[in-house]
């Protein structure tokens, strides 16, 4: 249906064009001419203004123009986006051939915005352009890496080191408690979702723009409130064909300073022995006899084996390689870009790996002066060797820290020693090295994205663009766990098991855009109206098998027991939108947009939402009174306000469904159905109102640019899973409740200079964001997530989202007298934690009543700094980024500092409380009990402040003077990524965020981050 109507629209406008194209124009003294670019191509839409007057015209499709003048001669000012402005004296009746030169000045750059482009100097919203030149030598396995430290207000965290892993991106804080907080990614005009996934080659990217404020994002309506990342892929530039071939190779390692230090075999045996004897000393008040100590750890000094499991799981010098070739050309009316790339990142954990093979073809062409078309196709295959889950204490990384160090990796015969621990009171784990190498776990994700458009210019000022986008994603996953792999406390042999999944997604969208561009004298106006519709459907097929005849045939056919299932889900949206940009006298800038959008995800009665936005700017530097200040090339004040939405909730969240709960009667299956959730027919958009005030400044012939920004974003009707009393039958339901504020300042500055042959640039930004819950209008005015023994995050009015919550630990009880004089803690013994009595009732209750906010997971500020320079053939760049003033709850220490003696523990455990005479360092509890030790408390809080020297790159570029050589340019470069981390945080990665969402700032150990050294070569032919 939709497509039919877009055709209809197209006919309508074609008709209009035919109707009006023959209108003639009046005659008087005039200048005519044509405008071309340096390649000789006609420039349409250039502004021609008569100096000293307000009159102006635009060049037509063939670059031709005619402008009436007063008197015999005049000076024409010709300007166009992306070109240097020229002044040309002309006499009446003359014909001018004008060649516009492309302008490198940042201010004249075109910025990609939603459904269009805009001159940077006329932008009135908060739009950040990522400097891709600064990251050209960085080894990139996922394109989200390109955003690190580049834009103020855009927090990019590498929460995990998984090969090919996506970085976590937040624009202007966490704007939602329950509906997702990742930005919308739009690739070549196609909104692909809130994740860029793994199927994208970063080398194909021409530019990245991040839209932050409401006037920039409201045009994306219900998906705009978390910011929008616009990615444009490369296309051929005018000129001769260019072939670019590059190759990068590198190695990855974990620096020893970033490894967590655990006890070795002998130390662990000593720890076990001490626990055993201390318990008898305390509970039975006697000195134990050595013969009482179990033989396994009676003589720690005799322990022969000591395995550092974490080291054993590492793949030292894991290779990283990247090969890329592109051919771009642009002559006559066809511009094209073809590329192929292959990236392989072997993981720093054994047998983990990411491969990406990508091919792309982009082609744009002008059919004639009025019609142009384009097609962009990208096919990509991404493969992951994940060797089982890695994150968290129950998986490989956690297990490699806490597994018994007294067991060897291999038996004397070379086979794996399979079951680690599982004796003398130590937890049993699968040998993590064996799990990595012997468990097959592989996903293959194939994706095809295509965009096609046709654009018709008519009536000189109108353009109609119709585009169709499609995405197909085929994701298959297979895991096979052989029978000899133990489980947690489950020795082998067990049954082998297999899991298979196929998840296929298809997503289509279509846009119909009508634009009107015109200049009347001092006025320049740009109008956009459009319609878009998008539909996504995912089908799933899954199967599992167990009880295999042997481990050699890991296919379902060999399984004695099988399970299977299939599913389907999807969503759709459609929207009308419009925008007006208006510039008056190059000084006063206005913009307004509106979108009305409907989504299948929302309740029956609230399907549609409205998203308006307005902004204004004042280019003070163009005022007469500023004309004396010659060093100032641009000064602009701007402000915007608008409403955006967030639809990141489950597809059918407003509806209630039945689910199967079968039963048996008379030895036969009977079908049973129960209600699986509560409906909410009024479920609707999460709405954010955002105010943005900014100042843009450029000085010293644009060598220095500076932007400062203030914003205040208030999110209403937050989509939340509201905890319900269980007596309702359920524990939660989805509703629009609550209000959150994110406000902050952003500063960005760039300085670029050249002194003789030395070029230097510095690019820095600082972001300060404060988030605060303003209201949670539920029956219970707070949201508590997490658990009593594993860290709580609380969201309640006046506090930041997901503030870390628990007992405040005041120290350890030195002795019974200390316990007696403190508030009552039921069952406390010397050596357990002393907690703060928050409700002053002289009792610490064993629940949340005495818990307080013990940490803030949100940084006071984050920053990025890039420094670069060049000298003759050499260039270098350094990227620094960091975050300051936030807390991390190190939940992994519930295991790595577990005093039961069932796990290996951190080296610091040696400083635990032993007895009154030997009280340790005052923050580590006794081994005699567990109560008053494991509860969520401030003992596990650490400052996460850190600074990364994220990357250092140097390069050498050689442009041979003699064209006899085959190549035009040769570039050699070396790069070090994740170079140096400066922090007091004891964990390996202060950007970790194991749970995410409203459970921020918890460290349960993630895939470690490697330091990568790469060397590359790049030929341009």
């Amino acid at each position, binding site marked *: 249906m939709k497509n039919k109507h877009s055709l209809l629209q197209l006919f309508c406008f074609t008709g209009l064009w035919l109707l009006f194209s023959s209108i003639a124009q009046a005659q008087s003294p005039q200048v005519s001419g044509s405008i071309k670019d340096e390649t000789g191509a006609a420039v349409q839409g250039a502004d021609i203004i008569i100096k000293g007057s307000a009159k102006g015209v635009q060049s037509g499709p063939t670059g031709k123009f005619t402008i009436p003048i007063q008197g015999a001669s005049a000076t024409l000012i010709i300007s166009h986006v992306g070109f240097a402005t020229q002044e040309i004296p002309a006499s009446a009746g003359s014909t001018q051939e004008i060649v516009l030169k492309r302008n490198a000045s940042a201010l004249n750059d075109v910025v990609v915005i939603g459904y269009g482009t805009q001159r940077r100097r006329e932008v009135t919203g908060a739009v950040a352009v990522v400097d891709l030149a600064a990251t050209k030598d960085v080894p990139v396995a996922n394109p989200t890496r390109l955003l690190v430290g580049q834009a103020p207000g855009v927090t990019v965290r590498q929460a995990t080191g998984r090969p090919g892993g996506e970085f976590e991106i937040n624009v202007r804080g966490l704007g939602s408690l329950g509906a997702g907080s990742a930005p919308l990614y739009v690739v070549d005009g196609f909104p692909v979702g809130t994740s860029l996934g793994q199927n994208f080659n970063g080398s194909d990217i021409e530019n990245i723009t991040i839209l932050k404020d409401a006037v920039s994002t409201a045009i994306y309506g219900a998906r705009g409130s978390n910011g929008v990342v616009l990615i444009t892929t490369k296309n051929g530039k005018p000129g001769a064909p260019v072939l670019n071939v590059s190759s990068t190779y590198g190695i990855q390692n974990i620096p020893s300073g970033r490894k967590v230090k655990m006890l070795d075999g002998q130390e662990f045996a000593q720890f076990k022995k001490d626990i055993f004897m201390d318990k008898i000393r305390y509970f039975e008040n006697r000195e134990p006899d050595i013969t009482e100590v179990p033989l396994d750890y009676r003589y720690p000094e005799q322990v022969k084996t000591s395995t550092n499991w974490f080291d054993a799981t590492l793949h030292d010098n894991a290779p990283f390689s990247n090969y890329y070739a592109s051919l771009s050309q642009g002559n006559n009316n066809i511009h094209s870009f073809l590329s192929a790339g292959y990236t392989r990142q072997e993981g720093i954990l054994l047998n983990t790996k990411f491969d990406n093979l990508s091919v792309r073809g982009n082609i744009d062409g002008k059919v004639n002066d009025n019609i142009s078309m384009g097609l962009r196709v990208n096919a990509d295959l991404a493969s992951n060797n994940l060797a089982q889950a890695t994150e968290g204490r129950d998986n490989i990384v956690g297990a490699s820290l806490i597994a018994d160090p007294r067991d060897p990796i291999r038996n004397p015969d070379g086979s794996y020693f399979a079951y680690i621990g599982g*004796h003398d009171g130590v937890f049993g784990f699968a040998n993590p090295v064996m799990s990595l190498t012997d468990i097959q776990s592989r996903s293959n994700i194939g994706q095809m994205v295509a965009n096609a458009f046709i654009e018709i210019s008519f009536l000189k000022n109108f353009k109609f663009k119709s585009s169709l986008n499609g995405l197909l994603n085929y994701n298959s996953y297979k895991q096979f766990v052989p029978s000899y792999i133990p489980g947690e406390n489950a020795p082998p042999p*067990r049954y082998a098991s297999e899991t298979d999944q196929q998840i296929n997604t298809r997503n289509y969208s279509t846009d119909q855009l009508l634009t009107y561009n015109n200049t009347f004298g001092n006025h320049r106006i740009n109008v956009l109206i459009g319609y878009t519709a998008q*539909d996504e459907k995912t089908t799933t097929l899954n199967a599992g098998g167990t009880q295999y005849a042997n481990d050699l045939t890991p296919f379902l056919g060999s399984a004695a027991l099988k399970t299977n299932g299939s599913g389907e889900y999807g969503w759709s949206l459609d929207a009308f939108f419009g925008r007006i940009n208006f510039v008056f006298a190059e000084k006063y800038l206005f913009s307004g947009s509106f979108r009305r959008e409907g989504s299948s995800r929302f309740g029956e009665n609230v399907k549609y939402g409205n998203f308006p936005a307005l902004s204004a700017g004042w280019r003070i530097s163009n005022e007469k009174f500023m004309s004396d200040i010659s060093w100032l090339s641009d000064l602009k004040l701007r402000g915007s306000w608008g409403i955006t939405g967030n639809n990141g909730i489950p597809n059918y969240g407003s*509806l209630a*469904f039945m689910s199967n709960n*079968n039963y048996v*009667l*008379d030895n036969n299956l009977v079908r049973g159905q129960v209600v699986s959730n509560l409906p909410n027919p009024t479920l609707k958009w999460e709405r954010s109102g955002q105010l943005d005030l900014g100042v843009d400044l450029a000085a010293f012939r644009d060598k220095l640019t500076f932007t400062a920004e203030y914003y205040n974003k208030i999110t209403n009707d937050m989509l939340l899973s509201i905890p319900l009393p269980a007596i309702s*039958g359920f524990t939660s339901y989805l509703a629009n409740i609550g209000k959150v504020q994110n406000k902050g300042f952003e500063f960005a500055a760039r300085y670029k200079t050249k002194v003789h042959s030395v070029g230097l640039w510095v690019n820095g930004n600082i972001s300060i964001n404060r988030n605060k819950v303003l209201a949670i209008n539920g029956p219970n005015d707070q949201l508590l997530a997490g658990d009593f023994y594993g860290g709580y995050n609380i969201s309640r009015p006046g506090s930041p989202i997901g503030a870390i919550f628990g007992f405040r630990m005041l120290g350890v009880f030195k002795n019974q007298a200390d316990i007696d004089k403190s508030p009552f803690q039921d069952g406390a013994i010397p050596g357990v934690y002393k907690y703060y009595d928050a409700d002053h009732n002289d009792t610490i209750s064993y629940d949340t009543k005495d818990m307080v906010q013990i940490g803030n997971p949100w940084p006071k500020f984050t920053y990025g700094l890039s420094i670069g320079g060049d000298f003759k053939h050499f260039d270098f760049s350094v990227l620094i980024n960091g975050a300051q003033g936030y807390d991390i709850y190190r939940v992994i220490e519930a295991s790595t500092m577990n005093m039961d003696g069932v796990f290996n523990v951190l080296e610091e455990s040696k400083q635990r409380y032993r007895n009154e005479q030997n009280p340790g360092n005052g923050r580590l509890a006794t081994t005699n009990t567990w109560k008053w030790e494991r509860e969520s408390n401030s003992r596990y809080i650490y400052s996460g402040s850190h600074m990364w020297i994220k990357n250092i790159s140097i390069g050498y570029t050689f442009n041979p003077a003699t064209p006899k050589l085959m190549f035009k340019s040769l570039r050699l470069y070396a790069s070090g990524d994740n170079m140096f981390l400066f922090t007091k945080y004891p964990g390996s990665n202060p950007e970790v965020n194991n749970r995410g969402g409203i459970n921020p700032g918890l460290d349960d150990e993630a895939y470690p981050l490697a330091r990568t050294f790469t060397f590359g070569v790049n030929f341009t032919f």
Partner: protein
Amino acid sequence: MRIIIIRLLAITFTLSSVSCAKSYLNKTDPTKVSTDVFYKDAKQLEQAVNGVYGALQGIANDQWITNELPSDNTTIDFNPGDRGQSDRIEAFEFYTINANSTNLNSSYINYYNSIYNANNTLAKMQGATGLSDSVKAVNEGQLKFIRAYLYFELTQYYGDVILITQPLDKPSDAWTYQREKQENVYAQIESDLKDAVNDLPVKYQAGHIGRATKGAALSLLGKVFLTEKKYSDAVTTLNQVLPLGYDLNDDYADAFNPQKKNGIESVFEIQYDAAIDGEWSSFIYTFAPRLSAGAVTGWSQSNPGGWNIPTNDIINTYEAGDKRKDASIGLNFQSPVTGLTVPYIKKYAHPHAVYGRTDDNWPVLRYSDVLLMLAEAINEQDNNPTTDAYTYLNKVRHRAGLADVSGLSYQSFKDTLAHERRVELAFENWRWFDLKRTMTPAELTTFINNYAAKEKANPTVTRQGVPYSNTDYVFSQYEALFPIPANEIIVNPKLTQTPGY
């Protein structure tokens, strides 16, 4: 000219707006039935009733934690290598339960979710079409029986509990409910069971065996009266079970034999089936000693839980010659680490064809329970055992291979019955309730602390030298009731906690 353009645009957009027909944005989960279109006919209502039965499986799977472990019947196969359960399941053995217990939390959620489905189905039944009054009555009777059973369990756990018998109009209503006095909870249970007695048939036709019957409703009502100490009501009610055709199996073990499910002795059991996907039970995998691998389950890949281990106390309580001992308790497994015997519950250990999938039903009400309840009610009512009371008690003893008893005083008859119930119904999730029912809170406290001291001094399963904590096996009177899960009080701070916690 501009006006024309605007008009044309307006027309085109109006056309497009029509295209975004509502159906385009109306999506529903294609894999599930929406609640809006369910509960419409007899078949769907039967499925909704079955769903409520289905939920009982989940409840029975974990009920031993709250009903057997705190009693003197069972303990744990202590695992020094995994202390992760020390604040969870073990707390029920060591009397260190607190409101953060994840087991209580999930149990509470399961009970009220099942109650919701019963309430909702009862309410929706009014709107269904093509439902005869008799079909409706049988459905209602079953749902009320199950609801009464769930509330009976809940009030034994927590005393005063929230009583909710309707689906909520809106979610926020959930905050308006407070814990109801136990007597009101009992009144609701009695009313539901009386309806069920009237509505339910004595027997079902083939294909429906396993549904709640009139006998089940009467037996449960008798148990409720007995618990409320309404002895004459209990006698009257339980007497009505006698003519319904129940009898004891000749062999005690047959009551638990998957080959002989729903036999003559069975009053109500929760149904499982090893051969049906997702419907199997796996109790023995939870109850077999930790290191027994395949020795008890028959499947060497097993990694059993080692929970609900029979205590020395119950092992030693059987009279010589009691056939029930061998049918209930296995004493043939020695730990490979310590070489010592680790006992286990044998009632639910039966050979099964597929690893992890057992065919054992869970017995809820058996005829022997009815006979012993009746004997108890008579003794309490008359303050003296009557001939009938001896007849019922001796019938149970006779089947166990034991000599009749006679000439007992009120108190010794009561004591004999307590012992008889303990061994007859061992590990069937009644012991903890029986202890609470037959003792005053102070008596219970002394009794449990005596048992605890014995178990602590001489654990059934060795702790391999690991000493107890000071708080282990210390029972306080308030612990006869469980704490309301902490989550519930976090969500609804107005909800009161059980005193003591």
